[in-house]
């Protein structure tokens, strides 16, 4: 009986696991969520000494996580842009899923940022006394606005739940909100563009950190544009990857193959462009930017170990060029495993890029009497990290179960039956 | 629909005015001063004293603020007038030698630095500019303190005193900044903060 308890909430024409199995799936995530909540509580109550961050490693796992999930969450804005503005109508099949992913990524990032700062109750200071020259101000403003936009974009997805739909006013609001969605898609693109950029700018402007510092265009360092481009490149990849995972986990077909192909093709093109500009930027940095500031670039990699030249190679060639080529060649892209593998590699490449800018920048010494330092996060940091992952998993799972994340699912189920 | 709107507005305004009325009352706590004090009795025709006679500077330029008991006792070792307040003061503080714990209306937050010497001695700012005409008051104003911060009401934003006396400048950060801006004095946060 318990298996059918929520049947009235599940959309018609799609199949979902029995409720008990859903609970079984959700339980470990909920446990992780609780553990993370406890760690977050500790940090908020006692202070940040619960983390292994210190005066040198001022940013740790959390900032790395923020930058990464926000880059991956770019799939939301970019899919919206492709669908509503560039009219790539086949992407309608994943837009809801992309919105939920974006929402999860951004709200998770904001949540963990609130724990990461020393005085969360002063978060409004940035709005009240903004220093408009700081990249972090831009990030704060844009992320807040964009999270609002994502919440608004989530509303129609949410209102289409089977039970809520029975209330006529809900459906009417959903309809009218959906009609103006192009406005939100455009605004979201603008906001996301700026804060992806300012997250890159965050490190590119650090003139005291020659490892991260980059030459600029107007008021923005080159990392501003590279972060935007890389986020746009992996956004579709991440959407494809999550869709593929969802198909794997649920054992159902959720979108048509052409959607994967479109996502892969766009991702591949942008990734190739990104790799090209990243190479240019790296060459400029090695030959001009870093030496001009008294730091010959090759010295950054002399510490070896975790931060050797392999990291540069892995980031650009192995996890940038290779997936780009796979995604660009139609025959390779056509194979699902290869496509998803390439998408995963692209996501890893961007993750590594964010790792380099956050962790490696802080690990490298700037002063002559200093040395390379390593840092390993405390359990509280890992648990808070787990909190975000579990939160994302749960929100996504609930959304998948009760909302229509993949509108093609019903059609695909019928086509399959006909066969 | 209109009825709902009217109901909403009515409820909203009731809640708003209730909050408007109650929050300041809940937020501040009244504390008694140790004794009654009349400024005008000292500074008026009869007393003839100036502010600096009691509120003096020390040799290192710091401001002494409210005088210690010995300053009071210098004149009031025995009653000089007829008032009950004076008799009480002598009985409770002067004779047993107990320092009265005056509550300071203008006590600034811990992180603020206000050099009286720079303003009064060098800048020739009149006391009334910030403190208002407290020197002409006949009795002490009610001392109200913020429940959370423990800072007196006057530095937390109360502009007009309950005695009906004009308190010209005010002693909030905004008041400081307004005056400094008006006089085009270079300032950074650390000019006034510590």
């Amino acid at each position: 009986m318990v298996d059918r308890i929520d049947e009235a909430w599940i959309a018609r024409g799609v199949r979902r696991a029995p409720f008990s199995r859903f609970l079984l799936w959700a339980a470990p995530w909920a446990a992780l969520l609780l553990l993370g909540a406890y760690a977050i509580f500790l940090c908020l109550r006692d202070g940040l000494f619960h983390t292994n961050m210190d005066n040198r490693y001022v940013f740790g796992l959390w900032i790395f996580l923020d930058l990464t999930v926000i880059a991956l969450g770019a799939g939301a804005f970019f899919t919206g842009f492709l669908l509503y503005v560039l009219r790539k109508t086949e992407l309608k099949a994943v837009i809801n899923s992309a919105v939920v992913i974006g929402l999860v990524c951004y709200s998770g990032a904001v949540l963990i940022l609130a724990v990461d700062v020393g005085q969360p109750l002063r978060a409004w200071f940035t709005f009240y006394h903004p220093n408009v020259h700081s990249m972090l101000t831009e990030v704060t403003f844009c992320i807040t606005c964009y999270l609002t936009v994502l919440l608004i974009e989530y509303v129609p997805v949410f209102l289409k739940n089977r039970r809520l739909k029975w209330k006529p006013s809900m459906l009417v609001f959903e309809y009218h909100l959906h009609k103006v969605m192009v406005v939100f898609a455009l605004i979201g693109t603008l906001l996301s563009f700026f804060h992806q950029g300012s997250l890159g700018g965050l490190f590119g402007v650090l003139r005291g950190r020659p490892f991260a510092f980059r030459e600029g265009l107007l008021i923005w360092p080159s990392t501003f544009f590279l972060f935007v481009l890389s986020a746009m490149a992996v956004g579709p990849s991440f959407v494809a990857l999550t869709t593929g995972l969802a198909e794997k986990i649920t054992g159902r077909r959720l979108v048509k193959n052409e959607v994967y192909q479109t996502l892969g093709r766009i991702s591949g093109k942008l990734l190739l462009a990104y790799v090209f500009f990243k190479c240019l930027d790296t060459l400029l940095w090695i030959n001009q930017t870093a030496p001009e500031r008294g730091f010959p670039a090759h010295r950054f990699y002399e510490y070896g170990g975790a931060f050797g030249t392999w990291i540069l190679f892995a980031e650009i060639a192995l996890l940038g060029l290779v997936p780009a080529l796979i995604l660009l060649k139609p025959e390779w892209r056509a194979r699902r495993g290869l496509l998803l593998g390439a998408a995963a590699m692209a996501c890893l490449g961007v993750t590594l890029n964010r790792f380099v800018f956050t962790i490696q920048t802080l690990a490298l010494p700037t002063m002559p009497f200093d040395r390379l330092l390593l840092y390993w996060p405390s359990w509280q940091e890992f648990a808070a990290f787990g909190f975000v992952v579990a939160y994302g998993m749960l929100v996504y799972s609930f959304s998948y179960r009760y909302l229509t994340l993949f509108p093609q699912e019903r059609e695909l189920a019928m086509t399959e039956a006909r066969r | 629909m209109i009825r709902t709107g009217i109901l909403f507005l009515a409820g909203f305004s009731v809640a708003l005015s209730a909050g408007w009325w109650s929050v300041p009352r809940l937020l501040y706590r009244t504390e008694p001063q140790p004794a009654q004090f009349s400024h005008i009795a000292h500074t008026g025709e009869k007393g003839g004293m100036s502010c600096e006679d009691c509120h003096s500077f020390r040799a290192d330029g710091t401001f002494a603020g409210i005088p210690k008991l010995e300053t009071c006792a210098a004149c009031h070792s025995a009653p000089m007038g007829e008032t009950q307040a004076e008799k009480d003061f002598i009985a409770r503080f002067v004779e047993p030698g107990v320092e009265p714990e005056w509550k300071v209306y203008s006590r600034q937050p811990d992180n603020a630095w206000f050099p009286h010497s720079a303003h009064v001695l060098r800048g020739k700012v009149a006391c009334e500019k910030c403190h208002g005409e407290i020197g002409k008051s006949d009795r002490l104003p009610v001392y109200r303190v913020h429940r959370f911060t423990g800072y007196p009401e006057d530095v937390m934003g109360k502009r007009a005193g309950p005695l009906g006396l004009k308190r010209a400048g005010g002693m909030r950060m905004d008041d400081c900044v307004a005056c400094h801006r008006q006089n085009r004095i270079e300032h950074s946060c650390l000019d006034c903060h510590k």
Partner: protein
Amino acid sequence: MRKLGAENKTARYAMLIDLDRCNGCGACMVACAVENNVPPPQPSATPRTGLNWLRVFRLNTGGRDAFIPVMCMQCGDETPCQSVCPQKAVEFDPATGIVGQIPERCLGCRYCMAACPYQARVFNWWDPQWPAGMEQALNPRVSARQRGTVEKCNFCHGRWQAALEKAAQDGESGPVRYTPACAEACPAQAIRFGDLNDEEFAAECRDSGAFRLLESLGTGPKVFYRTSRAEVREATRGFGEVKRG
């Protein structure tokens, strides 16, 4: 009404530290902590989570080690930490040349710490705690610490304020002269504090033996070092040490 600051010409306070004299005793660190109400470290604190505004580093020169006290350099050009703060909790005061850090405004995002190449900024990882009775000895001219905020050396701002009060009392005009706690405490008199607008002091800072840390970054630090040992000067120009300790 006369303008309060009008007769006060601006100052550019600076430090000149003689590395030949510094023997690494750490008196400056202690004096700094006492002056600025730095609480004793928590039992689980490490050298990397401490609240020291001033730290003395050992510089490996190949020969005899040198000691080098590092505090906030009060960078004058393109101050790296100032522009990055999202809410103006860092401020460069043109009247004194001191980079102000306002803990009450600070959110604790630590972006300024990442921006500082000298690692002169520290974070309050703990709630400050003083052993019973020790809070009686706190310096009233320096506000209490706050957990979750960033702070740093401000050239003993409380002492500057005290000097200003005294100057107003005495009717003196012009930039005030004072001595920060570290300079006062140094038994070898290695730390000198002065005003770069004072020609004599500025000339010493431009001395052939004088240098600044990471000058190539273009941050315009106002803490100068001086040494007669060429190998020390050479060692400070190096990159971070590779594989040591």
